[in-house]
């Protein structure tokens, strides 16, 4: 049963990693415009990288 000592923390960490990624996405407003984002992949405008931050 010693394998549990490794596996349980690992599974928790992986889950927490997923949660953190979701939080990051939410904070960065990745879910702000699902419809627009779905269409944007069809345009040639931003293929290389996201728009440069304004400065």
């Amino acid at each position, binding site marked *: 049963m010693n394998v549990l000592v490794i596996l*349980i923390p690992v599974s928790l960490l992986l889950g927490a990693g997923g*949660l953190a990624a979701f939080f990051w996405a939410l*904070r960065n407003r990745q879910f702000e*415009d699902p419809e627009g984002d779905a*269409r944007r992949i069809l345009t040639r*405008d931003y293929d290389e990288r996201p728009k440069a*931050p304004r400065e």
Partner: protein
Amino acid sequence: MSGPAAPSACPACVAAPAARDRAGAGEIGGNIILSLPTAHCAACISAVERRLEQEPGVRAARVNLTLRRVTIDAEETLSPAHLVNVLAGIGYEAHELDSTTLAATETDRRGRDLLMRLAVAGFAMMNVMMLSVAVWSGASDTTRDLFHWVSAFVAVPAVIFAARPFFDNAWSALRVRRLNMDVPISLAIILATVMSLYETSLGGKHAYFDAALSLTFFLLAGRYLDYRTRSVARSAAEELAALEVPRALLESGESVAVADLRPGDRVRVLPGTRVPVDGEVEEGESELDRSLLTGESLPVAVGPGQRLNAGEMNLTGPLVLRVQAAGEDSSLRRMAELVALAETSRNRYTSLADRAAAVYAPLVHLLALFAFAGWYAATGDIRLSVNIAVAVLIITCPCALGLAVPAVTTAASGRLFRAGMLIKSPTALERLAEADTVVFDKTGTLTLGQPEPVGIEEHRRTDLAVARALAEGSGHPLSQALCGAIRAAGIAPAALDEIREVPGHGVEAVWQGRRVRLGRADWVGAAPAGGTAAYLAIDGQAPVIFAFSDRLRPGAAALVQGLKRRGLDVILLSGDAPAAVADVAVRTGIEAWEAEMLPADKAARIAMLAKSGRRVLMVGDGLNDTAALASAHVSISPASALEAARVVSDIVLLGASLEPVEEALATARAATRRIKENFTIAALYNMIAVPVALAGLATPLAAALAMSGSSIMVSLNALRLVRR
């Protein structure tokens, strides 16, 4: 964990200052927001963004297609009106949305907050469930205890964070000594967690951490669905409201907010604009369209000394107005008070969910208490009795009930949104399903409020050619309708000289050396005919009469027929003259109609119907309908309605057609039926589960199975509404 973003967990801190971070992900801290109702594809996005970014002074522009908006980061000096024109230049309709900016970020924040809690609950639920499966499949002794402790380690903080909205709601209900659905929910979650913690510390067999978390997860999912449905409707309704920014033009040419006007100010009202305040005409002559205020379809002539009310539309000549009443004692304000009075009566409606909760919550608590008392009396074992009481609470926790309503309203609202309707009130569907009487307004609701010439082909071609040339010289709605109809008949305009418009009277010109006039009967020297008409006089010829009738809104007659087929009573209440009302009543097939009604009369008539036990659906668009809309059981207004009317109605029709109303009614009835079915499913499940729990036979596994099973059944039942 969130990279460059602020380290704080508070969503409020994230929303405000992190504009630069967001720009990296494509979001812009813009200072101008425009609504783009016609944008719909990838090409629209790049066309709008590219054009705006070419504009000097625009730093960045980002289209949000979900909300049909564009957020623009521009220099302070750039005016939104200029950008609206720029977009109009490439064929996109745009409207300024400044006042709603704050409200929009506010609602976004709530949605993200709920989503975050939902994610935490989901993560914790899955991990704890994984450990629970091991326990259920036979882990024992130290392994079981270890698993329980790990579960507790994950579950306790997760429950405290994720279930906060329920605790807050339950507490605010308890503070005013009321019970809502959140009270049994919170109690079940808290008791399940605390009892499991206690059992774990004693090395007990059963822990309900997974149940506490899956309850939280499912219920949060319901909450989020509910929120999403309403926020889509709300933001669209806000856009409609923000389209009219109330401003007035002072005589000096300066544009000021209506709120800043003082009695005695002189205001200029240009043709084609609305009268911004109550006042008296000082200079100028014109005709006014009062249909939104009174329902009259005929334009009224006005001149110096006459009193105007805010909201009327100036048709032909410029007017100068002395402000008589602004703010408190204007006619708009009095109307608003009437509406406020009517609103309070409707707020008493309690939703199906609340009614169910009022019965359900006390019952559940009594059952749990009864289980505890019974087992304690029988065995004298407090720990066992508490365990069973908690099992009863968990099993009866209205998980399916919590999903029953939002799942159905989400499905129904989505369906209606695609059909061109916005559901503004959360209980609108339930109330709509109960409607048994439909009251229509005439002008602007059953009709488009746009006159249409009748019998054009009966006139001589030369008359029509002259009429078209004259009509082209005027912006009056009758002229424009006439011009459009003659153009459609394929008749070219005659060549005229010296065309000039006489405000409040008509258009005059010279044709082949003869004087010709198109306008009011007395001005051209014709005998007035009944109904709406324009008169053409050619020197040396008898005057020609062009009769107009108000065009029916598409789908109006079909809707009335459909409603009658469904067995609803249809009534037409209008402020217009009896002849015009009778005409529309005949064309749509409505037998019961009343004309020349004042706004208060309409509201009183609806109150009378309500008193005789009728549930009234009011469909109206004008200021004269707002009180009636507010006092009706449920109300619908077209998107062309005045802002005040749209604000008080529960459902807004986005398209021009009335046809979707019947679909709304059918969907509302189906939705209410589904909600009741869902309640039945939940009740059936309780009937089976409660005796098992009372008998002390419920294990955490049984609770988890039953809970997920009923939740899934309820959701699937709701989804049946989407197809069909």
